[in-house]
């Protein structure tokens, strides 16, 4: 179902359940059924704060660490991403195996990623941007917080890039 929607021209769908957020493989999407208040959302702020501290302290936000990675001069970034995936894999396996529920009692639901040529073309373009800026979207926010205020321009430009994608999406190969 989602595959068809994904390639559809994205107008108002006849399917009332359909939400345009799905036209992206539900990347980072919220699948909780009950709505959350402002205060409930503060817990994600807290997780973000801890996450930002880890980003800076492990120097993942450093342009130099990204350069080392792409020059194969250091194991650091490979170790970080590799061990993060290992822990993520084990966690998701445990959640599925023991049917662990969310704190509000819902079954954990994760959307499948659907193959799309954008993963190749867009992935390559992001890779180029990653090497130039030394940042993926998460570290952009951490770099600004860490005092590299020039990166605010990078963030604004990334928002513009996202918007431009939304503008020309229908004309791109998918």
């Amino acid at each position, binding site marked *: 179902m989602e595959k068809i929607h994904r390639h559809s021209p994205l107008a108002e769908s006849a399917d009332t359940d359909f939400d345009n*957020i799905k036209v992206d493989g539900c990347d980072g999407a919220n699948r909780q059924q009950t709505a959350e208040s402002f205060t409930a959302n503060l817990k*994600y702020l807290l997780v973000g704060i801890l996450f930002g*501290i880890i980003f800076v302290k492990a120097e993942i936000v450093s342009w130099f660490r990204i350069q080392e990675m792409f020059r194969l001069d250091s194991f650091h970034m490979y170790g970080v991403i590799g061990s993060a995936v290992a822990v993520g894999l084990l966690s998701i396996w445990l959640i599925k195996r023991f049917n662990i529920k969310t704190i509000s009692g819902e079954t954990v639901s994760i959307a499948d990623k659907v193959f799309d040529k954008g993963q*190749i073309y867009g992935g*390559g373009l992001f890779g180029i941007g990653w090497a130039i800026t030394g940042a993926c979207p998460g570290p952009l926010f951490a770099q600004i917080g860490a005092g590299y205020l020039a990166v605010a321009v990078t963030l604004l430009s990334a928002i513009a890039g996202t918007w431009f994608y939304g503008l020309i999406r229908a004309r791109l190969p998918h």
Partner: protein
Amino acid sequence: MNIIELLKSPWPWYVAGPLIGLTVPVLLLLGNKSFGISSSLRHICAAVIPAGLPFFKYNWRKEAWNLFFVAGIAIGGFAGNFWLGNPKAIVVADDTRQTLAALGVTDFSGLMPTDIFAVSNVFTLKGLIFLVLGGFLVGFGTRYAGGCTSGHAIMGLSNLQWPSLVATVSFMIGGFACTHLLLPFFLHLVL
């Protein structure tokens, strides 16, 4: 070495990596949220400049958690650098350092070289290439790919999604090609 000194020194990969991996179950169990940061850029578009585009026509308020999350990352970035900051200069691998120095980079003291990433460079060619062009590619590319390092490389691979492996390999190919083919040209041009 006391605990504060330990916290202030750079954290090794085997501490940071597993902690980042834990974000996956933490977000899932706190509220059925899939880890993915680049979507925050889409939500900002949907909230501020949707311009009637169907791609931005969805209930972004339901996804507001992602905006809280990235706001947290910025605060964490501040805390990590100003309260728990490493008092010493960053240690860059010798080979990378020599290559970059040969390309004109002189500042190896902080997380980012101020030769390039200084506010005074915003309205120069440096800013145009390293901030504007680079940022544009990050925003355009991640959305076209349907995710970034967190959504594909960490969340997608953790959930054994092969399209995420395709995306991750593409990120790396783009990054290697840019580092070895484009960056020497860009750095020569501006430094």
